[in-house]
């Protein structure tokens, strides 16, 4: 027993050291920054203040948070609906096709995401491919104005973050013992019931990590709202971006980031409570 533990300590040591120095260090700096004052023009004055947090309570900025949450939730929902079956089906493929599917899934990453989003811009624009196709199919008379609208942002978010969901679900579905599902079927369970009671429960950890990997970054992804949404919706990510650059108000940006961090943590904890995924204790 004792020996086993010492092995685990050695395993965890790199993570501990790295996290404490290179993750906790910068983050502490960020928290400290959120209580400082911006210097006129450029830089920071290290005088304690709560002003930055007070400012967030302003309805203009509060609205940014609710807007971001709404968008993140919507996108995550779509990502789950599309990505979960994908990852699940992928895990059921033969070994040969599994490998191929994995390669197909990763190849798009060779193309810079900014450039891929420009690809979507060309597809979605009023005189673009989509409208062209719909028109020649006789489905619409007037071109749809999808680009620079809310749906366009959701499409972009779903597109960029989908692989994260797929891979998470896949890696936990891949270890599923299909004979269990078969057994449930043999015992007379309907396909859906067999799926729900056996497969879904067992792939839940994968879904959960997928949700975290998609929901969390979608709060900060500002360039999708910029390229496909025409910047007409203000997200926390874009607000922080602006405060960091043109606004030159880092303490406020840091305070926004701290609040975002806390809210995201709360969301994850809440989600975990609902899904009751005890195995993943600790992350929140």
């Amino acid at each position, binding site marked *: 027993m004792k020996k086993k533990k010492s092995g685990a300590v050695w395993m965890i040591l790199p993570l501990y050291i790295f996290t404490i120095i290179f993750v906790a260090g910068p983050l502490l700096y960020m928290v400290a920054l959120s209580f400082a004052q911006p210097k006129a023009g*450029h830089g920071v004055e290290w005088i304690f203040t709560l002003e930055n947090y007070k400012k967030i309570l302003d309805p203009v900025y509060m609205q940014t948070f609710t807007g971001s949450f709404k968008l993140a939730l919507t996108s995550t929902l779509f990502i789950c609906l599309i990505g979960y079956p994908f990852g699940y089906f992928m895990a059921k493929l033969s070994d040969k096709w599994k490998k191929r599917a994995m390669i197909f899934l990763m190849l798009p990453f060779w193309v810079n995401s900014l450039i891929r989003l420009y690809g979507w*811009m060309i597809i979605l624009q009023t005189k673009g491919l989509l409208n062209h196709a719909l028109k020649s199919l006789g489905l619409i008379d007037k071109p749809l104005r999808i680009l620079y609208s809310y749906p366009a942002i959701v499409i972009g978010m779903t597109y960029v973050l989908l692989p994260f969901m797929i891979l998470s679900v896949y890696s936990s579905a891949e270890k599923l013992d299909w004979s269990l599902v078969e057994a449930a079927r043999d015992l007379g369970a309907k396909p859906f019931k067999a799926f729900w009671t056996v497969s879904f429960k067992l792939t839940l950890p994968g879904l959960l990590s997928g949700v975290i990997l998609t929901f969390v970054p979608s709060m900060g992804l500002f360039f999708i709202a910029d390229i496909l949404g025409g910047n*007409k919706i203000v997200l926390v990510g874009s607000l922080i971006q602006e405060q960091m650059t*043109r606004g030159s108000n880092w303490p406020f940006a840091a305070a926004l980031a701290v609040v975002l961090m806390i809210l995201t943590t709360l969301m994850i904890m809440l989600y975990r409570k609902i899904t009751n995924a005890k195995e993943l204790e600790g992350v929140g």
Partner: protein
Amino acid sequence: MKKLVVCALCAALVVPTLAVSVSADDSKELVLYTWENMFPQEVLDGFEEETGIKVVYSNFDTDENMLEKLSMAKGGDYDVIVADDYIIQTAIEEGLVEKLDTSKLTGWKNINPLYQGQFYDPNDEYTAPYGAGIPLIVYDPELVDIDIKGYNDLWDASLEDSIALTANYRVLNGITNLALGQDFNDQNTDDIAKTGEKLLELAPNVRLIQDDNTQDALLNGEASVAFLYTSQVTTALQENPDLKVVYPEEGLGFGVMGMFIPSQAPDKDEAYQFMDYILQPENAAKCFDYIGYYCTNKAADSLLENQDLVVPDSVTEGSAVENISAEADEAYNKNWTEFKAACN
């Protein structure tokens, strides 16, 4: 799976070695720090050929990022920097910029005096201008029924959901100020509140707000009117010469990019050589044709292929984004966030 990993590993090991073999080891180097694509390769190669100095091209995305890096490096690390006017002002105030010895710059006399004596460097001690911009209104006369003359026309009800705007909050607040007859850099918070209200009224007309490639929206028909930076105006006109360009009657916004040497630049002599090379008319002309900003080099005007880059004689003054009080800045910021949220 394994294949993919092997591929990546091979590529990671092979490509850098290729890259290294491409870049020969030269003792004389110069670190140029600016946005990507600000100098044509031809000019950089020409400089290397003439002087034997290799240009290491380093990039930043925003002025603020540059300032931060430079102040962390205490004015060192970089040899020549090209950035926007307002940030240079701050850099000068922080003592990060070298006072120029203009006797080392034979091309100094070529600079167009219109761009000298600006607010950020009133005595021309620190910078040489490298390109200027005047944000303008451009529209497609086939799609727009009204005759646009100035900023106020942007508020016209017929332009619903059809304007593309650039995304600089100070410039947009500034032109709204001009539309209201206020000063571009108005610092009075009551005035700024009025500006905010006026901006909100513009919201229904806005199709998109974007800082990069804004002209695309005008060219692909997403928007029929656009408020664009100079390089974007140039690109838009090259693609569609039928577009109409408006110099707004209420007054012009104005911005200059400046070239400077950081106070602790490691290779100052090389930096002077580079600056002087760029100030030579034939090189300058190539540069401005390439970047599509107004030519700031008087001697290069006649050498430009694109004569639209010579600033029209009618333009004698414009308002630049100047550094303002924190309070006013805060108010402008809030206006902007409210405006963007209202556009949706």
